């Protein structure tokens, strides 16, 4: 006969999850702003060496990337374990660098061509023979501005092995 219904005892009220999407969206926007789309799928191991006297490489549209390193595990059977060069999603030979640079230059506006930089993303385990070959090729096509892309860190720490 009571006018006021007694609260049902026992089961807890459901916790509101309404703010969960907001939090996730916040994360999402952070990632959308702070990152860029991956350009190339790496088919090689690419652990960059560390250095601390680095310069930032701004203006991504003026950078051409050359990757080099040991083929990653799923390509090992096909391409062996020797360090190789990767240009635009596929393995390449040293002699193909000239054509690659020419293609990159053709895709840019003409007045920007002198400012193009070649970023060498070379695995720290690679040897200098390959890097020297790349540098020699770049000299032949007059792409003289290069950048050895590195991680930020102490250059000497990784050497003791």
């Amino acid at each position, binding site marked *: 006969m009571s006018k006021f219904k007694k609260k049902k005892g026992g089961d807890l009220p459901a916790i509101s999850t309404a703010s969960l*999407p907001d939090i996730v969206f916040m994360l999402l926007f952070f990632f959308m702003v702070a990152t860029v789309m991956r350009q190339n799928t790496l088919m090689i191991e690419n652990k960059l060496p560390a250095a601390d006297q680095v*310069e930032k490489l701004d203006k991504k549209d003026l950078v051409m990337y050359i990757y080099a390193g040991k083929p990653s595990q799923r390509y090992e059977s096909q391409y062996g374990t020797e360090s190789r060069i990767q240009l635009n999603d596929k393995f390449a030979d040293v002699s193909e660098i000239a054509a690659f640079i020419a293609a990159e230059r053709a895709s840019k506006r003409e007045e920007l061509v002198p400012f193009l930089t070649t970023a060498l993303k070379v695995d720290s385990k690679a040897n200098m023979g390959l890097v020297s070959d790349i*540098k020699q090729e770049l000299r032949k096509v007059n792409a003289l501005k290069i950048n*050895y892309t*590195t991680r930020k860190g102490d*250059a000497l720490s990784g050497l003791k092995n």
Partner: protein
Amino acid sequence: MAKRSAPEVNAGSMADIAFLLLIFFLVTTTIETDSGLSRKLPPLDENQEQDVIIKEKNIFQLQVNKNNDLLLKTGGEEKVIEIKDLRKAAVDFLDNGGGTGSDACKNCQGKRNPKSSDNFDKAIVSLQNDRATKYDVYIAVQNEILAAYNQIRNREFVKAYPNLNMNFVEADQKYSDPRTSSSEKESLKEKLEAIKILVPQKFSEAEPKKSN
């Protein structure tokens, strides 16, 4: 009549959708590590074969062999050095100031050893590596040489422009920062160029040796 509140819309799946998007972005994007050591390659010029005469004491010759050991030849001496000692050795060499007369170096603060370099402008760092040298050792050596140059340039920059409250590297970063105003850039550029002329980076790389 009792007021009926509107039924709550179930937003439980909204989080799932947002998570889906988030994971998509996590997978397809990278936070780029776009920083590194910038270098300029020498142009390939076949008919440039005249010999330049350089005094032996002005060359800081480094060789890295296939076992990643570092050999330093300077002032008629040869010794094997560790990479961790390279920066100090390079600074000592560049900052030596052993020149006399027209080669005298008024900004150098080194020991003025007559067997080491004359002045900043004369000092040359040369590096030769083996084809089997590991890339990370090469980068470490490059990094240390650059660090030595930066150390001296920082010192000279602070000495020349004490009221700017920054050193050469910071000024250079500020110069390449797109947020810096163009008038400030102009004045920074002038100062940076002056230091670059005072302490030029003379760094040469020889063709790598074939290892056998």
